[in-house]
């Protein structure tokens, strides 16, 4: 419920409820509130709102539903947000948040300061039948502003009827009205953070008749926004998804330059492609290590001969490598090269987005042409593999080429997705994804096996360095170095991991033929309504 104005709200409530109920002021305290959500607004999407309430001896995290009903709460001294979920002690609140928030960090959306006044509503026997909390607060960040004064009526157990009656009396009184939307919506509205506005998550909707160059530049500008929006979070290492999102935007940019760069002004693709390759390469080592570390427990749980504990020195090694790689990544993202790249790229795109005087191809035809071409390449390579498919099956190199062609097709589909019927688009991507998954299983297994060999060599080399008395190197490592016996156990466990990966690779390879046949049958061009002229001629 909302009270108009901020003056004497408790007194006005008391007047509205008389003579049926008496209102007693129980507590009144200054409170700071911080609304929290993930960068991609997962809580909001799940119909939840999380806020930290702090002040006057009370620190708690409160989770409420879109109907403003509190569902879980945990006492917690306000940490410095953003933080990952592990800051919240195990309990009902964390259980409720975990499936929604997953590995993302909780970021502060807005901060407010104000007064929380708790009133007791007494019946004629002077028994408390409900509590009313009056929340009068003003936003402090990101922009100042007075929030509507909210009233939350909480019935005492067994007195719902009386609380409902109090609610009805208030609604009927002047200056009180039922709230049309939950508190978080007012906060988002006032701070200009409407749901889905999280920087970079919005997609540009293309229509087929748009001039190709301008439309392409528009989508690329949006991807540049995503890259920029994620950078500061990557630098602060808030959660690993920021780097992932940044990389996806870079990959999409690179494939647009490669596969449709000719639609941009002459020389632009050739100028920027090597720079985005540099940016992509800069991010790869940290991302690979993020993936390893995030899946580490699952990987360790899959061991049968070795025990998961044997892998701990491997985990420590990965964490140390990640620290090193992250320093390199942060240096790169703070470099003049990166800042210059983004500034030049943006001004080039803005120039390209200007309408050109002469006739231009439309984005619908460009997209159809490029998707059809990429599709043909996948079919050609895949059919050749299927024909050669005997004995041990296709070679690793051939599968890798097919995977790269599939990726190109996937990026084009995603890049131009908004041109097509959403259901058809989803079907097309799903079919392609089936094929990509088993190719990925094979290729990732190959890459990971190589990487594990590399890590093993690094671990042995580092041990030799320490054994030679280079104490300074050892001091840099927080954890004590593993003994020879521990290292041997770790290496054996790592060997078992490579064996598991190999088994996965074989399974992936065995599936490729079937998946490819399914992909061919799916006729995704027809699904999307794209005519493949070259195939017909």
């Amino acid at each position, binding site marked *: 419920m909302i009270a108009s104005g901020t003056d004497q709200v408790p007194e006005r409530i008391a007047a509205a409820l008389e003579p049926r109920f008496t209102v007693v002021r129980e507590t009144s305290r200054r409170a700071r509130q911080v609304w929290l959500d993930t960068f991609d607004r997962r809580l909001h999407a799940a119909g939840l709102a999380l806020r930290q309430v702090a002040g006057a001896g009370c620190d708690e995290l409160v989770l409420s539903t879109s109907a403003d009903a509190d569902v879980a709460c945990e006492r917690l001294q306000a940490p410095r947000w953003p933080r990952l979920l592990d800051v919240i002690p195990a309990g009902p609140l964390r259980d409720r948040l975990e499936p929604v928030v997953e590995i993302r960090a909780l970021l502060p959306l807005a901060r407010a300061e104000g007064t929380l006044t708790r009133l007791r509503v007494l019946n004629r*026997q002077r*028994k408390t039948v409900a509590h009313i909390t009056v929340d009068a607060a003003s936003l402090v960040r990101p922009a100042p502003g007075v929030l509507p004064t909210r009233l939350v009526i909480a019935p*005492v157990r067994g007195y719902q009827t009386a609380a409902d009656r109090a609610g009805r009396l208030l609604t009927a009184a002047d200056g009180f009205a039922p709230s049309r939307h939950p508190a978080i919506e007012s906060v988002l509205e006032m701070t200009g953070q409407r749901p889905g506005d999280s920087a970079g998550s919005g997609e540009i909707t293309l229509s087929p008749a748009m001039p190709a160059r301008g439309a392409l530049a528009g989508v690329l500008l949006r991807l540049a926004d995503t890259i920029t929006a994620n950078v500061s979070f990557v630098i602060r290492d808030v959660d690993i998804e920021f780097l992932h999102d940044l990389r996806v935007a870079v990959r999409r940019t690179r494939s647009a330059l490669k596969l449709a760069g000719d639609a941009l002004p002459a020389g632009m693709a050739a100028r920027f492609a090597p720079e985005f390759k540099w940016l992509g390469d800069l991010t790869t080592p940290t991302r690979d290590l993020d993936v390893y570390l995030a899946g580490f427990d699952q990987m360790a749980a899959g061991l049968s001969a070795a025990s998961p504990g044997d892998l701990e020195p491997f985990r420590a090694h990965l964490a140390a490598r990640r620290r090193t790689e992250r320093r390199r990544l942060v240096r790169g993202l703070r470099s003049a090269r990166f800042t210059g790249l983004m500034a030049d790229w943006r001004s080039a795109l803005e120039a390209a987005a200007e309408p050109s005087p002469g006739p231009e191809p439309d984005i619908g035809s460009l997209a159809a042409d490029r998707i059809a071409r990429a599709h043909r390449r996948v079919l050609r390579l895949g059919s050749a593999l299927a024909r050669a498919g005997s004995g041990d099956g296709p070679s690793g190199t051939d599968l890798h080429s097919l995977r790269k062609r599939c990726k190109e097709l996937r990026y084009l589909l995603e890049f131009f997705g908004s041109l097509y019927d959403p259901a058809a688009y989803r079907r097309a991507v799903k079919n392609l994804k089936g094929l990509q998954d088993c190719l990925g299983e094979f290729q990732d297994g190959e890459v990971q096996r190589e990487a594990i060999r590399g890590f093993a060599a690094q671990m042995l080399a580092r041990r030799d360095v320490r054994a030679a008395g280079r104490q300074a190197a050892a001091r840099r490592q927080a954890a004590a170095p593993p003994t020879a016996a521990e290292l041997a156990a770790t290496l054996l466990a790592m060997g078992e991991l490579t064996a598991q990966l190999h088994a996965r690779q074989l399974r992936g390879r065995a599936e490729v033929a079937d998946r490819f046949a399914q992909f061919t049958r799916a006729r995704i061009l027809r699904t999307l309504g794209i005519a493949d002229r070259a195939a017909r001629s």
Partner: protein
Amino acid sequence: MRVIATYNIKGGVGKTSAAVNLAYLSAADGYRTLLWDLDPQAAASYVFRVKPRVKGGAKALIRGARPLDDAIKGTDFDGLDLLPADFTYRNMDLALNQAKRPTRRLSRLLGPLADEYDVVFLDCPPSISLVSENILHAVHVLLVPLIPTTLSERTFDQLTSFIDDQTGRKPEVLAFFSLVDRRKRLHRDITTRLPAGRSDVATAIIPSMTLVEQMSVRRAPVPAFAPRSAAAQHYRELWAELRARARLR
């Protein structure tokens, strides 16, 4: 969930005062607490300003036609709920007698509350009846207020031997001296002699104090309206002993 009953065959010994104050202290310690006012005189319900009425009365509750859950009322204190008394509780023996396994009925009724409460207090009517027998089966600790007289010592012995004769799980018994008047020599003698010899008598005592009588005027537990009073302190000491006896973490 731990179930504690305040019980004595005799009336007017401070059962309800103990139940109300200890339930309040339990909730104040963070235990989710329910107090079931089983006494048709409804003194505990009166203190908490809850109407002594349960829809369908004792019969509906005992038969399970109305879950206990539905009849529970929140008190004015966080974490403390009350299952009010009803005048029909005076016929609870009849209702129990008509139920299946009549001596275990209360225990079964309390079962579903285990997720919701950490501690349940039963404020029992003074008698030896089917209700008392039910209570012995349902509770973990039987808290017995005793007025320090030779006669009440005998009554307590009778009660402990009655419990010893029961089959199945037996509750822990903890007696405490209530309405103690330090000016009386007999009171002084008994309250020092008896706890020394036996583990089932609490060292904490509740003196006879005006403030305790004030509960029915102020209609609130003593530690709520006079938190710094000596009376509140005595109840806190008793609660500390009871909490240990009930093995509450």
